[in-house]
């Protein structure tokens, strides 16, 4: 009997038969491609990956992959991902969603996911708008973004997700651009491989409600610095950049949750049995 040699998987092998229903031109198509390229590059098999999301256009992503997936409720992607990782530490857990889901209704979960530093990669496809519900300002929308639903703009300073993630203890922080799918794939490989909580903000244009974001392609540029392991230095850089620096900005050395608590969490079998149906 000959040993079975597993075929090296291609990016397309990770896509499901479900066709994305994103608007033509949406940046999220590229993020999907980048993610499949990244996991193919690492050599993970679909059954070794769980992609967890909340609600929003970008949160549809688990349906378009043939890995394990869970399309959860609004803002609760990170608690779900945490549960999956705790129950199945052998899986590579990737959490994905948008800026509304992740920074508004799920904002508090972001803080504590960073703080716990569980080995999850969180990808936020940031288009600075609620696309699925027809264009309301999100936490990352500029104060003067004028729209029918918020005439004159929301008038509120935007949220700085990377700084918040750094202050809360994320172990890896990066900014990517969907229009650079290969560069994004490289960042995702790095993020997935880095132990602990990795946070990747992907600038992903919404061509329907934010057609102005088509210009992002001309505005992004490689971050003119190498990644630092000093969170305060990384935070200063992020606070003073133009929002279009692309690259890995911070790589921490804090041990992930399992190492911090000194042992792997083991399920209490009695509790598990209580929940058996």
């Amino acid at each position, binding site marked *: 009997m000959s040993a079975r040699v597993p075929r090296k998987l291609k990016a397309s092998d990770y896509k499901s038969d479900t066709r994305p229903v994103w608007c*033509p031109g949406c940046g999220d198509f590229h993020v999907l491609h980048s993610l499949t390229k990244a996991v193919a590059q690492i050599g993970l098999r679909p059954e070794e990956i769980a992609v967890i999301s909340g609600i929003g256009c970008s949160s549809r992503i688990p349906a378009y992959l043939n890995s394990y997936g869970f399309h959860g409720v609004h803002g609760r992607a990170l608690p779900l991902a945490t549960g999956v990782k705790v129950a199945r530490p052998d899986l590579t857990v990737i959490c994905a969603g948008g800026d509304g889901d992740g920074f508004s209704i799920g904002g508090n979960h972001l803080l504590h996911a960073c703080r716990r530093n569980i080995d999850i990669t969180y990808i936020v496809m940031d288009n600075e708008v609620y696309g699925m519900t*027809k*264009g309301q300002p999100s936490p990352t929308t500029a104060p003067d973004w004028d*729209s029918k*639903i918020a005439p004159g703009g929301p008038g509120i300073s935007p949220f700085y997700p990377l700084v918040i993630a750094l202050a809360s203890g994320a172990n890896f922080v990066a900014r990517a651009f969907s229009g650079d799918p*290969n*560069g994004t*794939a490289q960042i995702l490989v790095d993020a997935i491989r880095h132990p602990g909580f990795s946070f990747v903000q992907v600038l992903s244009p919404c061509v329907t409600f934010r057609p102005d974001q088509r210009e992002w*392609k001309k505005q992004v*540029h490689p971050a003119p610095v190498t990644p630092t392991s000093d969170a305060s230095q990384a935070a200063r850089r992020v606070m003073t950049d133009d929002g279009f620096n692309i690259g890995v900005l911070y790589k921490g050395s804090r041990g992930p949750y399992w190492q911090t608590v000194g042992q792997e969490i083991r399920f209490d079998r009695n509790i598990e049995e209580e929940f058996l149906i």
Partner: protein
Amino acid sequence: MSKAPDTFSRSFSMAELLVHALVIELEAVQSYKDLAVQMGQCGNNEVAGLFEKMSELEAGHAAKIREKAGDIELPELAPWEYRWAGLEPPENIDLAGIHYLMTPHHALRLALENEMNAMAFFEAAANGSTDQRIRSLAIDFAEDERQHVAWMEDWLAKYPEPDADWDYDPDPPAAID
């Protein structure tokens, strides 16, 4: 972030040139196929059909390159190790140019631009090589792309530029009243 065009190195080995040529076509196959689905979902069936046709043409080009490669072992490169002049392979459609109401004229203009980008890529590869065999292959590829450019120009001539209000939608998705 992927390398900026000014740091783009145009000096390829034979196997590298072949794998770049192949990936240009394979990514274009996928890119056009995805766009065909997206346009079909929006009911823009004419452009969906056109993108489907483009995808088939690119698949044919990929098969020809495989044939040219013959027994040459092609290197396995990570996606970011390819040396494109821009952020993506030259024949990938720029999503920033996509609109759900786009006409065949717009689609063909994008395709024409891509073929011209591919031609420029191979011309640069030919100019960047001192090895006669590699240079000759790159010139061949550039000639193929020049032929594709001519096809696209002929095709585009059948679809005149649409009226200025081509993207008028009486019920636009952004209407929040």
